[in-house]
């Protein structure tokens, strides 16, 4: 195939046109945003929008943030139009994805002001919910990062989350929350190991293996929950981990409730993202893992055991997903329901792509999704004229827009999805 490759200048030219086209698409999206804000949000935003920053019982009370509805939305529309026109006319230079990200942020801000105009709304409460809802997505994304860095595509995150949620509920009910959590992590790891065995040793197609694990876990957990939990309700009644407020840090306004007044899952997710970043980019083992993902043959030549590296990292990824799955039961409601993960694993996968295969990026993307998720929940209270179903779609539409708008800039590990056959 190397013989047929394009000469270099032509390839460079094509890269440029691709970037220009992407910039034009981004520009068009931004201009559409501007039109939306100017035509829909701005005329409807009468009165001031009041955002409550302080919560009852805060040590340090911040005043409310009051935004005049009309002026704010028109200014936002103007900025969006400017950004869009700039991308559309002279795009392909720089800041394409930055503009899109900033544009999305402005759009959401304008939307919030429009929805809150004349009413008041607890911003801090929503940010806290954002963090909570980002946890399973971030952990799913992190699991994806660990697997794809060694070139194993993990569609099975959804199933691993579900398995973790189920195990957490079952073992947690019998033996207490902490044991349940450990068991959930172990079962997540088990499914990671199974995925590794299927794709590394038995060379099954990676996407098929992932889909099958999802189907299997969904079937197994639904089966047990309708066959066993129906009759023995005590088996599905796990304790929920309490919120632990970190002294001093928990009293910081806004950030305190968001990050330092949470339960073990939020702290666990933040710590794991840090540890995974250190592991992947600052240790010898992480370097080996990334080498296996980029060029397994070269890694093999240098004496790295490709198969073992894949097994270890995919199993680790499964354990992370198992921990994230336990959040659904031990971290929030304490009982398992069929299919309760509701596509969070797939959104985690999107968070991983959006986060450019980096743990911190995945966390940031998960926060965006968590924000959309909690926004939809809180907006029901504000009684906007938008039907609740459309609000519920928002995170998914945002995923599509982000993946479509940004994927051109992100690069997957070179060997991603390809089995490696040692000669």
């Amino acid at each position: 195939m190397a013989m047929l490759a394009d000469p270099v200048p032509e390839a460079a030219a094509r890269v440029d046109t691709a970037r220009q086209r992407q910039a034009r698409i981004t520009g068009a999206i931004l201009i559409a945003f501007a039109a939306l804000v100017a035509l829909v949000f701005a005329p409807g935003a009468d009165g001031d929008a009041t955002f409550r920053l302080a919560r009852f019982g805060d040590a340090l009370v911040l005043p409310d943030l009051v935004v005049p509805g009309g002026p704010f939305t028109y200014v936002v529309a103007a900025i969006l139009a400017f950004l869009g026109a700039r991308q559309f006319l002279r795009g392909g230079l720089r800041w394409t994805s930055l503009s899109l990200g900033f544009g999305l942020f402005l759009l959401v801000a304008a939307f919030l002001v429009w929805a809150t105009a004349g009413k008041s709304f607890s911003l801090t409460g929503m940010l806290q919910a954002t963090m909570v809802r980002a946890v399973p997505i971030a952990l799913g994304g992190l699991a994806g990062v660990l697997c794809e860095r060694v070139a194993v595509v993990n569609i099975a995150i959804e199933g691993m989350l579900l398995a973790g949620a189920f195990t957490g509920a079952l073992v947690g009910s019998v033996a207490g929350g902490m044991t349940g959590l450990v068991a959930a992590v172990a079962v997540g790891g088990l499914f990671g190991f199974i995925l590794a065995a299927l794709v590394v040793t038995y060379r099954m197609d990676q996407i098929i293996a992932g889909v099958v694990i999802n189907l299997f876990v969904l079937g197994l957990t639904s089966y047990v929950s309708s066959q066993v939990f129906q009759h023995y309700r005590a088996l599905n009644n796990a304790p929920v981990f309490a919120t632990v407020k970190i002294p001093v840090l928990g009293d910081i306004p806004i950030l305190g409730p968001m990050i330092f007044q949470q339960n073990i899952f939020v702290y666990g997710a933040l710590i794991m993202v840090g540890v995974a970043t250190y592991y992947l980019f600052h240790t010898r083992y992480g370097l080996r893992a990334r080498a296996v993902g980029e060029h397994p043959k070269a890694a093999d030549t240098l004496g790295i055991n490709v198969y073992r590296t894949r097994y270890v990292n995919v199993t680790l990824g499964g354990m992370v997903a198992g921990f994230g799955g336990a959040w659904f039961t031990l971290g929030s409601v304490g009982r398992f329901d069929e299919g309760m993960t509701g596509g969070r694993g797939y959104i985690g996968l999107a968070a991983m792509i959006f986060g450019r295969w980096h743990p911190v990026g995945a966390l940031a993307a998960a926060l965006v999704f968590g924000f959309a998720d909690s926004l939809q929940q809180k907006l029901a209270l504000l009684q906007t004229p938008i039907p609740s179903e459309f609000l519920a779609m928002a995170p998914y539409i945002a995923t599509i827009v982000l993946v479509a708008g940004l994927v051109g800039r992100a690069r997957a590990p070179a060997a991603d999805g390809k089995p490696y056959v040692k000669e």
Partner: protein
Amino acid sequence: MSEQQPDRAALVDALLKRAAPGRSEFEDLFVVPLFAVVMALILGALTMLATDVSLATIGRSYLALLEGSLGSLRALSETLTAATPLILSGLGLALGFRAGMFNIGAEGQILMGGMAAVIVGFSFPGLPWAVHLPLAMLGGVVVGAIYAGIAGVLRATTGAHEVISTIMLNLISFRLVDYLLRQPWIQKAGRADPISESVLPSAELPRLLAWIDPNLRVHAGIFVALAAVLLVWWVLFRTRLGFEFRASGESPDAARYAGMRAGLIIVSVMAFAGAMSGLAGANQTLGVLGRATPGFSAGIGFNAISVALLGRSHPVGVLFAGLLFGALEAGGRQMQVDAGVSIDLIAIIQALIIVFIAAPLLVRAIFPWGFRRAPDAKE
């Protein structure tokens, strides 16, 4: 690429195999699936044992599984009814797999297509049957194709991976159907719950055996499914478009250098797959349900993925895989009634079948005596 040498060896090997379809092909097509089904049933029994189901009940449940799928006219009718949408949707997915597109969005395409068929189906009173029914089915086909086409266009223009975008389109479609079912022009008059108007008789797929017993649900959709098998086979193996699909699935780079327009192929594959799933949705609403309710797709779109995989993405394979899964579905319902074992067990068995089918090396490792020689020995 430095793997020129082994590639050529593999090519020669494949050519030799094609020239003399011998025992290994037989093993691939029959022995592996047989072992897969047997293994999955054994593991399913173990699952039941593990959840405190007695041996007698396990025996009874597998008997019910057989009886409910093949044991009577009613059972056969149920099997065919369950198999029809799986075959239709599985055909579309198989076409996508052939072209290298992994479309997980069948569920959403079924919902949107079925919804469109219902809307056409109750909207035009007074149309003759010969016009109304095809029109309603066409509605399902077109809307399914458009809905899947979104993912295709996104892939072709921006490179957004179809796995992510189709999953998101699925999740969006659930909410969209919920929304539509509450609209006054769709919601059944006098009902507060989300349910659509009933399809008019002139748009219903006729029940084939209603003259024997009105409870026999098998309907004319099965003929549509059979025709679709022929159509997909013809498109895939006898037309230029199908050749381009297969070529870009086998080697996207080679297809591009040969002058095939990758973007156009991606969009048309997705639209074709969506059309088949939309037809499956129309088949459900016009033939079985008679109306739309939230989540009426009931996981058919996900089972269709398994059907396409089990059928090795070949139209005829999909036909048989769809019949097998339809039988499991129909038998599973009987099993739930007779033996009190949850139908979710069927999902476990189906997933296990796919594991063993998709990883033939695993089956060979478990049953070394079933095969002549490990074919990967030379790799």
